[in-house]
C-alpha cells in the first residue's frame, strides 16, 4: 500500500485566530515533507475482541439504563480517497449529553449531567467500511472563546485506517443547525465545501418508525493506493 500525499487544502488552517486556542498551539515553521515510510504506511490493526456488545450504543453503554434525549442512529462508511470502503477501521466517538454537558471535571456548564450518559462509544467498520452508532442528539453548548460563542450540535470522531499516516480526528455536525456557520472551530476550515462534507444529512431511510431518527455521516481518510506494481524493485 502507498499513501497518497495529504491535500492540506481540504483541512483547517493550523493558525486560525478566530479560534483563540490555535494561536499559541500552531506550528509557525513549515512541515517537513517526505515520502511515507513503513512507519506511516503500517498501523495498528484492532480485532473484534476489542469491541464490547454495547460499545456502539451510547444510550445504554454507561449504566444499562437509557440516557435522556432524542434517540438517533448515526451511520455511514469509512472510505479512503480512492473510494474504497475501509474494512476493520476503528471509529471512536465522544459527545456532550442532550443538554450540552460533558462528563468531564473541566466542564462546568450549568446544564445537568445525565446519570445514564457516559458520552463515548466505539466500533469497527464492516467489510464495506460501514459503521453504526445508537446515541442521543447532543446539545449545543457555550464555550470560552468570543463572549458569546456556541458550539453547534456535534459528535467528535476519531478514525484509524490501515496506516498510522491516515489518522484523523474530526467532528460531525447536523443538517440544518444554524450554529454551524457561526462556529469559530468550524470556520478554521477555509473551504466551504469541506465544511459541508462534515454536515450529516437527516436520513429518513434509516430512521426507525416510533423509535429514532437517523443521520448519515461518511468519513473519507487519506488514500491508500493498492497497485499491481506493489512489489516493484526499489528505485523502479
Amino acid at each position: 500500500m502507498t499513501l497518497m500525499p495529504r491535500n492540506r487544502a481540504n483541512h483547517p488552517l493550523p493558525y486560525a485566530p478566530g479560534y483563540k486556542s490555535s494561536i499559541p498551539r500552531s506550528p509557525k515553521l513549515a512541515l517537513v515533507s517526505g515520502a511515507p515510510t513503513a512507519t506511516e504506511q503500517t498501523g495498528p490493526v484492532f480485532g473484534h475482541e476489542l469491541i464490547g456488545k454495547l460499545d456502539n450504543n451510547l444510550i445504554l453503554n454507561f449504566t444499562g439504563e437509557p440516557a435522556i434525549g432524542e434517540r438517533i442512529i448515526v451511520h455511514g462508511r469509512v472510505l479512503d480517497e480512492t473510494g474504497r470502503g475501509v474494512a476493520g477501521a476503528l471509529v471512536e466517538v465522544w459527545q456532550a449529553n442532550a443538554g450540552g454537558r460533558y462528563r468531564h471535571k473541566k466542564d462546568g456548564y450549568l446544564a445537568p449531567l445525565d446519570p445514564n450518559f457516559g458520552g463515548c462509544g466505539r466500533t469497527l467498520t464492516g467489510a464495506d467500511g460501514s459503521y453504526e452508532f445508537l446515541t442521543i442528539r447532543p446539545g449545543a453548548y457555550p464555550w470560552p472563546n468570543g463572549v458569546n460563542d456556541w458550539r453547534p450540535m456535534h459528535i467528535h470522531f476519531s478514525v484509524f485506517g490501515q496506516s498510522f499516516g491516515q489518522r484523523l480526528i474530526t467532528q460531525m455536525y447536523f443538517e440544518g443547525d444554524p450554529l454551524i456557520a457561526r462556529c469559530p472551530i468550524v470556520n478554521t476550515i477555509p473551504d466551504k465545501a469541506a465544511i459541508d462534507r462534515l454536515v450529516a444529512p437527516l436520513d429518513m431511510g434509516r430512521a426507525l418508525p416510533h423509535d429514532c431518527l437517523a443521520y448519515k455521516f461518511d468519513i473519507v481518510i487519506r488514500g491508500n493506493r493498492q497497485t499491481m506494481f506493489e512489489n516493484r524493485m526499489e528505485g523502479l
Partner: protein
Amino acid sequence: MVQQLGYLPESASQTAGPYVHIGCTPNFVGIHGIYAEDLGATPFPEDAPGQRITLTGVVRDGLGKTLNDVMVEFWQADAQGRYGPGAQGFARRASNFETGEWELKTIKPGAVAGMAPHIGVWVVARGINIGLQTRLYFEGDDHSKDPLLTRLEHQNRRDTLIARDTGNGTYRFDICLQGDGETVFLDM
C-alpha cells in the same frame, strides 16, 4: 470533457478539543465501566523480547506553557524492527492534568528499512486543528545514515526529534508546538 478521476476529498480534520479523553481514554478521566481498559495502555505483551525503556515528556505551546490536555499516540516497531502484528507497537497517552507529563513504558524499537530506530508520534489537543505528526529518535544511536534526519534543511532543528538519554533506560522527549525550539513536524 474528460472522464472524472473520481477521487474523494479527505474529510477535514477538526480539533480534538478539551474533552478528547472522554472518547479516547475514558478510564483516565474517570468514566469507568464502558471499556475495560483504555486503548493503547500497553504497547507490547510482558514477555515480548527487547530492551525495556521508559519515555517521558511534555508538550509546550508557543508561550512556553505546558499543555495539560494533550493526547499523544505512538506507533513503533518491535525490537527486531517489525511492525505489528495486530495493534502491537501502538500506545496512547493523556498528559497529566496537573503536570502535563506523559510516561510510556515500552521496548526500544529496532531499526526499520535503513532508518535509525524511532517511534512515530501523533499529537492532538484543543487548539490543534489538524493532528501533528513527528518522530522520536534516541540519543546515542547512529543517526548518520537516517534518511529523514540527514535530509533536514535546518540541521540545528534535528535535536528536536531526538529523545535525551536520562540514564537507566529512560529517555526524555519534550515537544514544542511553536517558537524557540519548535519541534520538527512532518507531512509524510
